[in-house]
């Protein structure tokens, strides 16, 4: 239990997807113009990460890993399917994003409209695939840990996009040099926010 909380908190603050690894930048930069839409996209990312990481964990554990198939037959003990992990992970992610899209369209058409193209684009959001690949690389011990990691990464990404959306709403009144307006200043802001988030670097719970 202690380990699970540790992973959760760590993946929110210390290993933040945006500020520590700069993953998921495309939608982070594009949809962060207003707080309301960014809350929607952030929630979608939490949801997708929270589902895909444990699902991919199970796949990795029982199908892809070296010797993972031995539960079928001891003869498979030498089979290593991990070269398939990219394609399998992406397929799972794409399927789940489709599901989310349908759910959002049904229950919140306004959110669906404001998210526009970016909801299907979650499928290729590097933070999502990154979550699954980090899960594989860090070799989490149980599905609980994998879920905590997925949810934590999602919450970290959510915090990042909501914070930058609020800042971007605020700097709408700033006199930014014309060449930097829009994406340019957002990159600079992200870097500065990354400095602030380094305060968590090295924290051990």
């Amino acid at each position: 239990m202690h380990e699970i909380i540790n992973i959760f908190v760590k993946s929110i603050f210390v290993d933040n997807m945006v500020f520590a690894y700069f993953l998921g930048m495309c939608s982070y930069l594009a949809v962060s113009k207003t707080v309301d839409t960014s809350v929607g996209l952030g929630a979608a990312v939490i949801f997708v990460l929270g589902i895909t990481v444990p699902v991919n964990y199970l796949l990795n554990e029982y199908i892809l890993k070296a010797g993972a198939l031995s539960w079928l037959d001891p003869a498979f003990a030498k089979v290593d399917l991990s070269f398939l992990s990219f394609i399998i992970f992406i397929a799972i992610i794409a399927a789940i994003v489709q599901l989310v899209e349908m759910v959002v369209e049904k229950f919140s058409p306004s959110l669906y409209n404001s998210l526009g193209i970016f909801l299907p684009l979650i499928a290729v959001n590097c933070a999502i695939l990154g979550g699954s690949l980090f899960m594989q690389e860090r070799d989490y011990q149980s599905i609980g840990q994998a879920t905590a990691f997925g949810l934590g990464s999602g919450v970290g990404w959510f915090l990042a996009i909501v914070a930058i959306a609020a800042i971007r709403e605020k700097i709408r009144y700033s006199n930014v040099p014309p060449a930097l307006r829009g994406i340019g200043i957002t990159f600079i802001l992200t870097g500065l926010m990354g400095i602030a988030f380094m305060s968590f670097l090295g924290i051990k719970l």
Partner: protein
Amino acid sequence: MKALRKFLDKQKPHFQPGGKFEKLESSFEAFETFLYVPDKVTQSGAHIRDAVDMKRTMSFVIIGVIPTLLFGMWNVGYQHFLSFGQHPDILTNFLYGLGKVLPIIIVSYGVGLGIEFLFAQIRHHEVNEGYLVTGILIPLIVPPDIPLWELAVAVAFAVIFGKEVFGGTGMNVFNPALTARAFLFFAYPGNMSGEKVWIADKLDSFSGATPLGQALVGNFHNFPSPHDMFFGFIPGSVGETSTFLILIGGLFLLITGVASWRIMLSVFAGGLAMGWIFNLVGANQYMQLPAWEHMIMGGFAFGAVFMATDPVTSAQTTKGKYYYGFLIGMLAILIRVFNPAYPEGMMLAILLMNVFAPLIDHIIVKSNIKKRLKRAKMMLAE
């Protein structure tokens, strides 16, 4: 005085559009308004007549930090001679410190104001006064023996990327002084972190770690007494050691209405609350440190009084200020105790809350709108 005014009036046409130096208009304007209250009158919209403008506000802050600055200079000398076991008189201490601190101030102002003027000329806006405060705060939060070129790089980074890209004073998101400090911290960690950070002179064999550095490695013997920490006879950054003088400066800011008492109060409340929580847990010796001792260690008081209250980068809403301050206090103590990499959490806690201040404001505003809509609906229903 009259002669000066006359001289300025005579030079003015050269700097107006069509004059010889029209490109340098904003530089001229900066010097003129520095000396005299501007005579510009707004033509439309709401008028507020007040003798206070941004330059006066900024100069109040500078007056507020002067006691800590002077004491800091003395303390640099005091700590230096203490390391040799000497106790010279006040003036010797002070002069030694002056020799250490003055170059830092000159570099900080020179580089920062240079960039500020350059940007004002290129972008044709007025020279902003904000840097007058930033430029004095930076020397107060860096170690006295910092190499000057590192300081210059950090100041340039902070002024350009922390402020000018947003359009100058009043439009930035991050406190420029803290940005400079954080830049130094991460770019040149060798000089800024570890337990040898704050000693006046690295060359001497004096192992005068700061109380924070000691606490982090669990060294609680010969810990300085609360009295010393409160009045500031401890190693530390130039401006942060004397909580007593910082509080006097803070009182001045509160009386003149420059700083927000809500933020100051809630920063201390947040720090105390977190300290008490750690006392209850008490898992190690650092956690058992009395909560109030955190307030007088390191840069906590300095950050609470001069950094967190920056009116530009803090939360703007009344309720938001309480949350903003409280979270700064809590995070600062949290980082101090939990993060082995950083002995001091105040700087990063404030920077981190600068990130979230607009979000806090957004939430407060949204909830106010909701509340009022509900009230209006209830009134309509009646």
